[in-house]
């Protein structure tokens, strides 16, 4: 789609979202939006590395988890202000992505999947085992909340948190769109679609992949920090398969390689799964439905989502 069309879509979307609190006063529904925005950041950033750059990164949620625990540990153990830890979470997540650079750059195909997954398990194990610092399996609670002066963000039915989450989503989306439209973004597409040609043009494949990974980690980490501060809880649940597959389904159903698709899908799926959680007997079944939806999207593939999926080039043999 043309750039202008994309901008119009985004402006429309964010204006609408900004106006939501005018109509919606329920603390619960605003909470749902906040969670939706958080997932939207996770999913759209995952789309950058997985969909746009074609990196088989299955450890994306690690960045989120690292962001969560950075904020938790920094505020609780080190007494850092929550306002500072949120950007700090982005930094630590980006560092983690850099550490994954060596394996991701050198490996191909299934091994990238396995090694990125292994990293996520490694971090999970570290979190579980170093329980003095991280609270282990029980996690950490009573993290400090956001406030400016006397204004606590939870006031007015979470109004402050709503706009904070929305602005983080907007910043993340702007960042991603700017990135993908830039020469760097174009080189990512080149690497994904035609590796040999890209190499012949002097583009370093491994460097682009690592950069894409690091870029995708920044806002994911930041939103992780926000998540921890907002819920005032950090738990190893963030590393679970359940969280990962929900985020992945948002990437797939929204449209791989589009950035904005996963944003919409995140909002839609968050509300859908929440609505389903209310129905008796659906607490587990809703995950099954999401998984089925994911399979359906992959199979029924015509144009739309999988038309984009077919542009995903597997790593060279």
């Amino acid at each position, binding site marked *: 789609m043309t750039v202008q069309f994309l901008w119009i879509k985004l402006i429309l979307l964010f204006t609408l979202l900004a106006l939501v609190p005018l109509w919606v006063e329920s603390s619960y529904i605003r909470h749902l939006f906040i969670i939706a925005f958080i997932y939207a950041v996770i999913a759209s950033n995952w789309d950058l590395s997985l969909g746009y750059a074609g990196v*088989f990164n*299955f450890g994306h949620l690690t960045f989120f988890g690292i962001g969560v625990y950075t904020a938790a540990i920094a505020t609780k153990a080190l007494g850092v202000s929550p306002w500072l830890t949120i950007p700090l979470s982005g930094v630590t997540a980006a560092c983690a992505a850099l550490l994954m650079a*060596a*394996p991701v750059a*050198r*490996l*191909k*195909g*299934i*091994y990238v*999947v*396995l*090694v990125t*997954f*292994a*990293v996520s*398990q*490694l971090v999970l*194990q*570290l979190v*579980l*085992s170093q329980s003095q610092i991280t609270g282990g399996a029980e996690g950490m609670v009573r993290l400090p909340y956001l406030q400016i002066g006397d204004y606590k963000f939870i006031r007015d039915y979470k109004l402050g948190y709503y706009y904070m989450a929305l602005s983080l989503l907007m910043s993340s989306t702007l960042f991603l769109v700017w990135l993908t439209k830039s020469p760097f973004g174009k080189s990512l597409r080149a690497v994904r679609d035609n590796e040999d040609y890209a190499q012949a043009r002097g583009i370093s494949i491994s460097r682009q992949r690592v950069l894409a990974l690091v870029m995708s980690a920044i806002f994911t980490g930041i939103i992780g920090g926000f998540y921890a501060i907002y819920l005032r809880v950090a738990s190893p649940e963030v590393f679970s*398969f*359940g969280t990962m*597959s929900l985020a*992945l*389904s948002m990437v*797939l159903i929204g449209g791989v390689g589009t950035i904005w698709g996963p944003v919409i899908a995140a909002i839609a799926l968050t509300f859908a799964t929440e609505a389903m959680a209310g129905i008796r*007997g659906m607490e*587990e*079944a809703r*995950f*099954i439905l*999401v*998984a*089925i939806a*994911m*399979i359906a999207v*992959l*199979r029924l593939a015509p144009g739309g989502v999988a038309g984009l*999926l*077919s542009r*995903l*080039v*597997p790593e060279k*043999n």
Partner: protein
Amino acid sequence: MSDALLTTLASGLVLGSLYALMASGLSVVWTTLGVFNFAHGALMMFGAYIAWTVSEAAGLGLLSGILAGTIVTGLVGVIIERLLIRSFYGNRNMLLITVMTTLAAMIIIEKGAQMIWGARLKQLPRLIEGEVSLFGTTVSAHEALIIGLAPTILLALWAFTTITSTGRSLRAVGQNQTSAALIGIHVPRAFSIAFAISAGLAGLTGALLGSIRFITPAMGSEPLVKAMIVVIFGGLGSLGATAGAAYVIGMLEAILILTVGLYWTPSLMFLVMIIVLVLRPNGLFGRRLI
């Protein structure tokens, strides 16, 4: 030799045997279809639950339970192949897509198990009660059985793929699909057979595990991850490499538990796995790269 070392040796053997069983199924599917089945751990869990249902809930005895666990899970494997893998043959993104569809299958099986059997812990009785002396230390008889069973099953698997026509056809399909079709091998049928065997092995392993671990819907995650470590170490190429790697990993884990303790062991195992991959992108013994 010191006591601690002997105990470590024994537990390394038990772990290695378990991991060999867990990883062999993954290896069969990988070498035949080029697909990494993320639902493999969930299938183990499913096998354990089926075994429990037949053995305990229906009271038909442990052996029937294990048999049922193996067969029913094998059938589920065929279903997975038909619904989640088959339509992506020839797709150039098949690897990535099937990673995602099998991940989805894992969620479905896990949440499904939770819905059907609930989250309360269950357990299967042991095949043999009592203890046995091994290398001068004592192991449970059931674990000793596993130590004996694993190589036997692996050998049977190896014999199947080397001697029988069907087994050879699986290897042929894994090496060259077109040539296999042109000598009269039904490639889709071979895929189904591979998945049936792989899933059956997973179910069997789960049923055996169900006596020494608690049966919960989430019990498949750890075996899946361990199986992953094994196939990474051994390279995904051959059954022999997988088996060898399994015992190496089992020993490594036992030694780590002895030296650095239970808390640090899992983290170190992953670290070692990542380092191995960086230094040897094809795995320790691996040759084939896809």
